[in-house]
């Protein structure tokens, strides 16, 4: 299609330039990682809580979930959701007598896949975090007449946050990089755009370097923001 265009044109914003597409891809990368992080947080917190309850069946199930989703390659999870969801939804719809729905968008299956894996790791982080608050402080808070919400806000959260933020920051970085796996579903995030551009222009080196630069930008910016947040949280946790 195009022959021997200079790099500045290939990466630029003209009609044959992929600059805009790459940037849009980077935006989608962040969106996928963010959505997966949120899902992972909600599910991970739930799993951590469940494992703290005294219901052995649930605790067991949560533990097994963690072992399985941390022991299986993320790529397989993405594959399972991308190829398996249409069939699963069709079966579900059939149960309620509805016609089979159309396949969910690749963004959704991608986020859910990364989110499910992220939840398994976040559960471990939350489990450790919940143990970080000394029992005595919680009892003192209860004795002082604090409501559960105030107890959480004033006593538990600041200290848990301090413990939990560095490993969560790590998990965020992994989410950001794992989002590249969603490229196999065809979603036009950064990895996919660079792959399509590399293939159709037959200049893989140029586009993969550009993609690497953009990923490095994202991970470095995340590092900086997380470092700021960690310093803040250390202050809130008090001289610990």
């Amino acid at each position, binding site marked *: 299609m195009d022959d021997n265009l200079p790099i500045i044109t290939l990466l630029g914003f003209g009609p044959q330039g992929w600059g805009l597409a790459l940037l849009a891809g980077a935006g989608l990368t962040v969106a996928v990682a963010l959505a997966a992080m949120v899902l992972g947080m909600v599910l991970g917190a739930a799993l951590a809580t469940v494992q703290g309850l005294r219901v052995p069946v649930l605790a067991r199930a949560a533990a097994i979930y963690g072992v399985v989703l941390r022991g299986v*390659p993320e790529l397989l999870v993405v594959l399972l959701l991308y190829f398996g969801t249409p069939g699963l939804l069709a079966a579900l719809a059939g149960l309620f007598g509805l016609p089979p729905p159309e396949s969910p968008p690749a963004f959704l299956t991608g986020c859910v896949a990364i989110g499910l894996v992220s939840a398994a790791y976040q559960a471990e982080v939350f489990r450790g975090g919940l143990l970080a608050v000394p029992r005595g402080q919680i009892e003192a808070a209860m004795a002082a007449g604090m409501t559960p919400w105030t107890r959480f806000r004033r006593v538990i959260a600041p200290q848990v946050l301090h413990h939990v933020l560095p490993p969560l920051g790590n998990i965020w970085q992994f989410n950001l990089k794992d989002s590249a796996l969603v490229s196999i579903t065809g979603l036009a995030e950064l990895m996919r755009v660079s792959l399509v551009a590399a293939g159709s222009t037959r200049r893989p080196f140029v586009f993969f370097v550009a993609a690497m630069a953009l990923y490095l930008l994202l991970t470095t910016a995340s590092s900086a923001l997380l470092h700021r947040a960690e310093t803040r949280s250390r202050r809130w946790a008090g001289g610990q």
Partner: protein
Amino acid sequence: MNDEIAFLAATALAIARALPVTLLLALAGALGASLLAALLVAAHQTRALRPLARAWIFVFRGTPLLLQMAMVYYGLGALDAVRHGPLWPLLREPLVCAWLALACCCSAYIAEVLRAALAAVPRGQIEAALACGMNRRTRLIRVIVPQLVRLALPAYGNELVMLVKSTSLASTITVVDVTGVAQLVIAHSYRTIEVFCLAAAVYLALTAALTAALRLIERRLAQGALP
């Protein structure tokens, strides 16, 4: 039902045939990554090579392995210098490219693990060794390395588990490993759940075995350490 069993049996057989590829990649990857990591840590200690080591760790930890594999396989393969160079017979092979990307990527993570463990070796022990008059080599072998191994093992074990899982990305550059076979069967038959379960079971077995072995080693080391 018979059809289902036949399908499962055929898939299991195909996966079993691909298992040596996954194992080879994991073992060679772990070896390569660990050796590279040791080199990186050593380079980090020197003034001249530290920026190089820092840059390596920055790039390989800051970008996805999937992209790194595509870069090594397609990116290098498009360069005339590589195609006409002496390494082409090796770099031509998808498995070699997968191993290269895997080793370089994991070396960055392992190097960070080793650096953290190195910093955690109790200063007092090193000073005691100096006071005893040990030379650099003895100090390294008798004091630092044993402590390093004990401190680094949990995190190093984690990285090994991640490495085993990361071998699955080789399937994206035409390597027919366990995941590659799974993708092929799914794409040709649309029976996702069964194939996924079979492939997942293989990886779970591998990571479970690895984790158990690491726990055993950790326990053995703890027995020999001071309370």
